[in-house]
């Protein structure tokens, strides 16, 4: 293994980012507005803080029984005439989704971090499909051939002038570099509009899943996910097993805490999806595929999550709601964005790199980049102790993994 060369290129990458003034400017603006938005959201809905504690308990319970909850959710989804799957590995998940999709298909995607984790878009493209990211940030990233730099705002590092240049190129019409952001948004809307209605397959993730009913909760603002999961005849959802909670009411609480700490008083849309579209309006005969999808498939990905759950100090990484708040508090993220990370970013990303993706060199690079300053822990609604995890991970890296590190 070429560890030093790997670290060398990693260090070069983050130092280049740290010297990028545009990146710094974009991030410092984002940090400022994020902080004041979260503050406002929490002042307006102060019960969120207590609810976050409740959610932590819900997650603590759920993580110990992911497997059971996945089976319960699958049973419920199948009762609703959808189909559920457990994918043990990333390869299994890719295979299931590729088989369902086929080839030469038009696919529209909502943003899914789990999709990024397994390289879903690239895989479907390799299989000969035409895949469109429909989240604006993700769309920009896809067209730039770049990778996301934040879990909620993937194109956080791209200034508007660069977006205008990019859109001019791909849309074949001149968009002035000084265009209003609204014009850029309108251009993306026009470009993607008919893709939704001609797509064969729509793909999404989910923020949380209620096992008792198999219901996916999907939080968004743009409305692209509603279209991507509503218009095509097939909806495929890819969900990490750590997103499962027992009851509908639990899932609601997880959702509210997630969006509040993600700096929203209330998002524009929360979709609850439990099965394929159906109607009984003609002679009370239930028929599937009314205006929404005829088929509904949910893939629950293990991909190392049950293994991670066995490490007492590291399992808390699975409580993460992906609100992204920690990233805005990380002094290193503030100058490097997602270059400090792997599939997931900043300190907690090291745990995912080590145990979920089993990329040990990458994990070591991230783990030894973390300052362990603890401001992420201060922000985290789940009180995930990132410094504690980092020290534990360094121990595994330096002294070796052993059975007593796991349950």
């Amino acid at each position, binding site marked *: 293994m070429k560890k*030093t060369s790997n670290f060398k290129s990693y*260090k070069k990458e983050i130092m280049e980012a*740290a010297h990028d003034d545009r990146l710094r400017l974009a991030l410092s603006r984002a940090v400022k507005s994020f902080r004041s938005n979260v503050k406002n959201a929490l002042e307006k809905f102060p019960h969120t803080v207590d609810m976050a504690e409740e959610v932590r308990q819900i997650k603590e319970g759920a993580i110990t029984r992911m497997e059971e909850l996945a089976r319960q959710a699958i049973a419920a989804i199948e009762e609703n005439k959808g189909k559920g799957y457990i994918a043990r590995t990333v390869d299994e998940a890719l295979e299931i989704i590729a088989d369902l999709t086929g080839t030469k298909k038009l696919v529209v995607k909502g943003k899914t971090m789990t999709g990024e984790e397994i390289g879903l878009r690239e895989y479907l493209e390799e299989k000969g499909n035409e895949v469109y990211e429909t989240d604006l940030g993700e769309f920009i990233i896809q067209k730039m051939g770049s990778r996301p730099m934040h879990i909620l705002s993937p194109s956080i590092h791209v200034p508007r002038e660069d977006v205008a240049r990019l859109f001019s190129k791909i849309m074949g019409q001149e968009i002035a570099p000084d265009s209003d952001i609204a014009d850029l948004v309108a251009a993306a809307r026009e470009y993607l509009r008919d893709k939704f209605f001609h797509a064969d397959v729509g793909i999404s993730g989910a923020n949380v899943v209620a096992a008792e009913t198999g219901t996916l909760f999907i939080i968004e603002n743009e409305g692209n996910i509603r279209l991507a999961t509503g218009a095509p005849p097939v909806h495929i959802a890819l969900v990490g097993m750590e997103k499962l909670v027992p009851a509908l009411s639990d899932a609601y609480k997880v959702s509210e805490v997630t969006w509040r700490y993600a700096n929203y008083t209330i998002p524009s849309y929360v979709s609850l999806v439990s099965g394929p579209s159906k109607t009984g309006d003609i002679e009370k005969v239930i028929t599937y595929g009314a205006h929404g999808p005829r088929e509904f498939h949910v893939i629950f990905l293990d991909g190392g999550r049950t293994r991670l759950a066995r490490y007492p100090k590291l399992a808390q990484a699975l409580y993460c709601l992906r609100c992204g708040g920690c990233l805005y508090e990380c002094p290193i993220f503030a100058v490097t964005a997602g270059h400090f990370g792997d599939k997931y970013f900043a300190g907690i990303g090291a745990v995912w790199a*080590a145990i979920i993706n089993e990329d040990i060199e990458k994990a070591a690079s991230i783990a030894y980049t973390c300052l362990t300053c603890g401001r992420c*822990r*201060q922000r985290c609604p789940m009180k995930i102790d990132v410094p504690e995890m980092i*020290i534990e991970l360094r121990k595994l*890296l330096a*002294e070796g993994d052993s059975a007593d590190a796991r349950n």
Partner: protein
Amino acid sequence: MVGISTDIIYAAAMDSELVPPGLTYLADNIISRQNILGVTKEQSARWAQNLDLPRQAETIFFAGCGYQFSAQLEILMSLARGIDKSVIGAELPMRFARFQKKLGLNLPGIYSSVLSRGSETEVKPLEAAVNVLRNLGIQPGYLAEEEPCCGAPLNHAGLQTKFADNARQAYDKLKSFGVKQVIGIVPYCTHAISSLFPLYVDGYDLEVRHFLEVVAEKIPSYKLRFPRKVKVTYHDPCQLVRYMSLVEEPRRILGAIEGIELVEPDWTRGEWATCCGGGGGFETVFPELSQVLAVNRASELLETGAEIIVTHCPGCIMQLKDGLRELKIDGVEVLDLSQVVATAMET
């Protein structure tokens, strides 16, 4: 990517290549010499030469490495940063210990030449802290060259087994001198002795308090005045504020000093203070990035319009001074809280 068993962690770690050399350098020094720089016993404890601190006492002052060796650490860091920014490449500071030989550097020699200069007229933080404690009616002892190293960087590097061994030895040593209470001042050391040692030491019964706690408790009954009217801001060290929850104490102390107006950043204060970019040896692994962070934090603090940046950690002091230097700011001082209190007691 997938399907590799976790055993690979074990295999890869055996050659220790995953621990950055900057951290193994500190670790080796701790193990061989009981201080982070690997300097000789004669070079440590010099700061206390004229203070007449008793060796044997139930309550001791624990000086740690950071303040004692701040001059040497500054040299080390400026060398490391120079190399890190140069074309020689990213890897060098990572392997500092090995490359210092290659580059013909004689670090111990450089250190002792700095020490022998001894030209500093200002009262250093450690001496100031002892003076403050004495003024408050506390007569602590000091183990001087017998003071064990807390070993915190070992823990931080992931070398827990070595940290645990060191913790037990350090604890036994403290006990062998009859120590019952420890007053710590370096945040890392104090946190290690008070919160990490008990994880590895059976029957642990030391009472450890941080200097800030002791001072904050006694200060209300003293009259304190700073020699001039100044705007002061306070930078919370991570270990003090987020690991030891010492939020109110420094503010209570500064608030009790006549002539000092405390001005703080809007958001990045107390529990939300931004890390200075030092800490736990990060600066030895990422010398240049660490400096970028130091500049950022210094800038946040400067926005308050303060003339003095007060903090309470040797690492933070070094970082913030460096940040100000990079920003080419003159006329803003970085002082340790102990220096500020000592000055306010004199006047």
